[in-house]
Every structure is written in C-alpha cells, then in structure tokens.
C-alpha cells in the first residue's frame, strides 16, 4: 500500500476548477516532483496535502490515515516555502526549535535535535544568527532544517529554490536530495524548472491545466513524453509534421522521404497528418552507427550556447533544432547552407494532444 495517497482530488475556486480528478500513490521515501507552468494546479495540490486548502472532492491519506479534514497543524507535515518564511524575531536555533517547542518536547531533547539538524545543513556555527543576517541559500537551508526537526511524515517543498541564484540553486538541490535520501523522508517538490525536476526526482508529475498529463521517472518523461504538452514543456523539442503513408507498417513521410518509426500508427489512417517529436540531441550533421535516416534541410541559424552549438534547419514545413558539442576546430554551418540531418527514425515519437 502506498504511503501518501491522493484519490480523486478536485479543487475549485468559485466557478473555476483548478484541479480535475487527480489520483496518485506515492511510496514511502519517494521523491516526487510536480512540474508545470504557473497556474497548472501543482501548488494547489501541494497546499491540499499540507492542509492549507481543502479539496472540493476526493481524499488524502498518509500511511492509511485520512488527512482530508485535518487542520494543517494536526498533520505533522513539514513544509519549505519559496520565500523561506523564517520567523524574523527568532534566531536560527529558535527557528529550528520552534516545532519541537510547540510539540512540548523536553529542553534537552530540543537542544540535541536542533544541533543534529544544524549539523545536517552544515550551519552549526550560525545558530545565534537572525534570518536577516544570512544569505538566501543559508536561510532556505535553515527553513529545511526547521521543517525536518519535528520528524514530519511528509516533506513538502514549494518552489524552494526559485528565489536563489543559479549556482546556489544547483548546490542546494543536490543537498536537499542528499538529505532526503539520508532521512528516507517522503518528499513532494513543486517546481516549474524542468532541470530541477529531472535532476532530483524519483518520479515526476507533469501538470497541465489542473490535470496530470504524465507521471513517470525523469527518463520516461524526457524520452517518451505521452502528450504534446509534456514533450514541449520538458526539454527542447522539435515537432515535425509528417504524413502517414502506411499505418500498419508505421511508415511516415517527412519532406518527401519515407521512414519507419517505432511508435504505432494503427489508430491513424493513410494520408493523415501526424506530429512527430525529435529531441535536439538525437540529430546530428554526421552519420553515426545509431543513425539510419538522413534528410536535407536549409540552415536558418546557428547559436553558440557554450558547451553546445544549436543549429536550426528548415526541413519541409517544419523547423528542426539540433545540438552539436562545441568544437573550436569545427565551423558551424552557415546561414542558407543546405546540409543533411542524420537521426534514427526510431527516435521519432508520435505526439498526441
């Protein structure tokens, strides 16, 4: 049986339904990320788990116990907020000790637990500081320690890295993941940053307009997106217009060239249009052992992105981007030049709306 169970959750604010019949089972110790654009309902689901919003329908259980109608302070759920939310009038020590004091723990136990938590986030030396005396990254680590101190059943992270600069964001997300693994705590993480979600999650829920478009491992979400939205939201994706030639044989035509793809086309008819997705890193200017297809295209632009050079080609009616590793010895194709793009036809994915 799953540890955190969300069953048929719905939420409406007045006439607007923001979450539609959401179901999910989360195992103990799992790290789940809710990924999606603003307004997709991911934070609303998190807030319903925390108890700050009441579902319009459905139920939430943790370890078999129904939490749906419990108040937030009765749920034993730790939460880390985007804006840190440290109590400005309290020192780091007092902030971390707050939940333990509220629970009426003995003084010695509080002291030991706070020290343990501060050691976990490597901030023992800042115990006497006030929040305003610390950097954003330090404050968020304290917020994490504060949320973990009372040993919550579930840890909720509401875009905890959004307010931090890029470098701190990367180091802190790794730290969060390491702490989560160390403690084995079931964690739900909300983010709109696909890289964050892909890098630290056991599973990702891609939310779109109040619904889960796809739930899967980072690899599944990235490599086999189920919908056009997932494909376009996670990573950069080429959407190529193709014509179905032989549905039974999964044969399609792109820019006058026929090829056989891996996905089934049995639900489509011959001559029908279909959108195929191709990741930029799956295509190359050079034929390789994996590639089996080559189509010509006209170079629209080449952008230097540091470690890679991204080139855009016009192929038939579609525009395809592909990445090449930066090599100072190679000159990127020039604008207007016609080149052959090589890829494996099995990397083309059928995208359904």
């Amino acid at each position, binding site marked *: 049986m799953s540890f955190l169970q969300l069953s048929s959750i719905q939420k409406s604010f007045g006439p607007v339904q923001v979450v539609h019949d959401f179901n999910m089972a989360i195992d103990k110790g799992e790290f789940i990320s809710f990924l999606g654009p603003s307004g997709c309902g991911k934070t609303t689901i998190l807030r319903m788990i*925390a*108890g*700050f919003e009441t579902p319009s329908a459905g139920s939430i259980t943790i370890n078999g116990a129904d939490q749906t109608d419990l*108040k*937030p*302070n*009765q*749920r*034993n*759920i*730790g*939460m880390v*907020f985007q*804006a840190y*939310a*440290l*109590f*400005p*009038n*309290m020192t780091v020590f007092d902030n971390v000790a*707050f*939940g333990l004091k*509220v*629970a009426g723990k003995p003084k010695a136990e509080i002291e030991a637990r706070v020290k343990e938590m501060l050691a976990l986030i490597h901030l023992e030396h800042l115990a006497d500081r*006030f*929040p*305003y005396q610390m950097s954003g990254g330090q404050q968020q680590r304290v*917020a994490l320690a*504060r*949320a973990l101190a*009372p040993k919550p059943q579930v840890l*909720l992270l509401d875009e905890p890295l959004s307010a931090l600069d890029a470098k701190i964001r990367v180091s802190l997300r790794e730290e969060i993941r390491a702490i989560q693994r160390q403690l084995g705590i079931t964690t739900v993480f909300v983010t709109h940053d696909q890289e964050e979600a892909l890098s630290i999650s056991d599973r990702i829920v891609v939310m779109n307009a109040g619904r889960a478009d796809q739930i899967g491992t980072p690899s599944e979400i990235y490599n086999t997106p189920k919908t056009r939205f997932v494909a376009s939201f996670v990573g950069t994706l080429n959407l190529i217009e193709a014509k179905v030639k032989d549905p039974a044989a999964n044969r399609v035509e792109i820019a006058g060239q026929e090829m056989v793809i891996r996905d089934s086309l049995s639900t489509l008819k011959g001559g029908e249009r279909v959108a195929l997705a191709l990741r930029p890193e799956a295509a190359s200017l050079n034929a390789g052992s994996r590639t089996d297809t080559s189509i010509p295209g006209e170079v629209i632009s080449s952008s230097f992105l540091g470690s890679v050079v991204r080139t855009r080609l016009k192929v038939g009616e579609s525009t395809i981007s592909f990445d090449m590793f930066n090599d100072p010895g190679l000159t990127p194709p020039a604008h207007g030049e016609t080149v052959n793009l090589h890829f494996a036809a099995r990397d083309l994915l059928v995208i359904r709306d």
Partner: protein
Amino acid sequence: MKLQKVWAWLAILIGAAYFILPLIATFEFSLRMRRGEYSFDAYRSVFADSQFRDSFSYSILMAVLTILFGVLLIVPTAYWVRLRLPQFRPVVEFVTLMPLVIPAIVIVFGYLRLYNSSSIIPFTGSARGTDLLLMFSFMTLSLPYMYRSVDTAMRTIDVNTLTEAAQSLGAPWRTILFRCIFPNVLSGVLSGAFITFAIVIGEFTMPSLLNRPAFGPYLQLIGANRAYEPPALAIIAFAITWASIGILQFASRFNKARPPKP
C-alpha cells in the same frame, strides 16, 4: 556647504524653534513664582497637591490599560483582516477613521445616552463601570493611530506565509499570534502606544463629561485658577510623557530582530 544643505538646516532650525521656544518660555515662566528670582516654588506647589498625584497616576493607569486592551483588540483584528478578510480592509479602515470625524464630545454624549445608569448596560452606574467606559472611550480615540501603526508594521512581514509556516510546524492560533506575529509588529505597536499614551494624558472632554479624576480636567482646573502652576504642570507632563516614551523605546530595543524588507 551646498545651498541645499543650508536650506535643510534652516528648515530644521525653524521647526525646532517652533517646538522648543514655547517650551523654553513656558519653563522660564514656571520658575517666576517667587518675585524677583527664579525658583522651583511652582513645582513644589504642584507636587504638594495630592490632587495632582491622584489625577496623574489615574491617567497613567488609564493609559496603560488603554494600550493593553487596545493592543489585544487591534493586533488580532489587523492580523485577521490581512490574513482572511482582505476584502474588508477598506471597511475596517473606514471604521477606525470614525473617531477623527466624530468629535469626542459627540461620542461621549452618545455613551451617556447608551450606557447611563438606567440603560441595559449601566456603565455609568458605578465608578468602576465609568472607569471602564472611559478606557473604552480612550481606545476609540486612539483607534485611528493604533490601527494604522499596527497595520503598517504588518505590511512589512509576509503574514500569510509566516502563519502557514507556523501552522505546518503544529502551532495553534494563539502561539502563531503571540510568538510569530506580535514580536514582528512590535515597532508598530510601540508607535501606536506612544500616541495612545499622549492622547490619554492630555484628553479633557471624555473624563470631564464622564466626571472622572483624570489629568486633563485637573490641568484645566489649575489653569483657570492659578498663574505659575499650569506651566509647571505642562513641563512636568511633558517630562513624564517623554520619559515614558523613552522607557518604551528602550524596551523595544530588546526586540533585536529586524523585519524583512517589504
């Protein structure tokens, strides 16, 4: 020195003179009770008057109670309006502004009509009841200042997120209000308290018409019958009020935390 700086200093000097010169003149006059020489006779006379001690201590007690009950009423109200009823903020602001629009004498006559000894709530039927009514009337008079001070302080903290953070850590409402919110709006509470203190010490209309032995009516009584004691009283009242404000400010220094920038 730049011309702009000169003008700034000139403005400060004119402002200071406007406030300080009358005070110096009042102080100087209060020392002239003895003919031909300066003395503190007027002060001795004031301090020797038991009515002064009684009225002043009565007003100070009233001020402390008004501040205490005012804080207990206004901090939770401002907090709840910000947290749960933001749509009612204009209504609450309007209500708190009413004491500035309605003169104190109108309010007190309303009180006398509503709470006289033959009414359902006969506050004026006893001395203690009238004291209570007077305290409520002081709370009403200080409402516009106290509410705004607290509300402004509350604007500098993220009330919603702090509340949710405390809730997720298991805190009940009482703990959230008194341990997480109140200490962070203390500067606003103190500002409101200073103004409330000054209002209560100097208020004449309310205690006079409710017939309570406050400092305002005493000041008026002395001013009408004596020459040198009233300025001495004014200086004493200033000194005690400033000392009280100083003590409050000193106490506020223990609140070490700086609220986050809005």
